[in-house]
């Protein structure tokens, strides 16, 4: 069956292999680069040398409480990095599942139930990541303001437009994974039709 597919749609199959392979390696590269960039952000005080070229948002703000890099101790920066590992973990895990999915596509395993499971897990992680973001904001606000004078210390729980957008994307991915699982069942039935 797979040999027939290769013969009849060779061009499309080659595209699937090439594009999936590229996306798999892109996902793996992001998994490796993301924690390094995050660590660099805290080590270099927010990449000040890149400021003229890129708009990198500075430290998170909490109400009117002023927070600057100069006010932070090394321990606070380390704790800030650790707090940032929480949302990073969800992104890296989701990318890990995507890399496995693209690896399956690269090897032309297009209609396997495992693929639908991987997509479902990716969507689930995106949704859970946004829920965990609430906990992250509490942690990072505590870390960044814990040495402030009384009255300027803060534990903040917030959710922004970006998180709501990601939540919507996560829900859409979950929906797509459900439809994909149903399509795989239909494909399996089709294969067992004589």
């Amino acid at each position, binding site marked *: 069956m797979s040999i027939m597919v290769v013969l009849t749609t060779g061009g499309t199959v080659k595209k699937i292999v090439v594009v999936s392979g590229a996306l798999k390696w892109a996902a793996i590269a992001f998994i490796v680069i993301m924690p390094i960039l995050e660590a660099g952000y805290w080590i270099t005080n927010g990449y000040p040398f890149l400021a003229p070229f890129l708009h990198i948002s500075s430290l998170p703000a909490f109400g009117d409480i002023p927070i600057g890099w100069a006010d932070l101790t090394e321990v606070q920066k380390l704790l800030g990095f650790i707090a940032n590992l929480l949302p990073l973990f969800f992104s890296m895990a989701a990318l890990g599942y995507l890399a496995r999915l693209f690896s399956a596509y690269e090897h032309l395993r297009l209609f396997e139930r495992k693929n639908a499971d991987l997509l479902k897990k990716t969507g689930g992680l995106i949704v859970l990541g946004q829920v965990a973001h609430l906990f992250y904001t509490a942690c990072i606000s505590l870390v960044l303001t814990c040495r402030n004078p009384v009255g300027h210390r803060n534990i903040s729980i917030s959710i922004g437009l970006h998180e709501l957008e990601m939540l919507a994307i996560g829900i859409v991915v979950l929906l797509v994974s459900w439809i994909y699982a149903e399509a795989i069942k239909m494909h*399996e*039935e089709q294969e*067992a*039709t*004589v």
Partner: protein
Amino acid sequence: MTIIVNLDVMLAKKKMRSKDFAEAIVITEQNLSILKTGKAKALRFSTLQAICRVLECQPGDLLAFEQGEMPS
């Protein structure tokens, strides 16, 4: 499987080899094997028609219903 395909019995009655039968009804031997081993989830009317024509039988001679759990 609650639907039993009695293809082996019918082929034995007609003393027909699987390979020849597959050629006669224009399906692959692999698909014939799926049908004979009860792994098929669906049977096309065109295939059933070809089987009945070649074996000179009725669909009821080929298929039987057996009480049991529904396949997943």
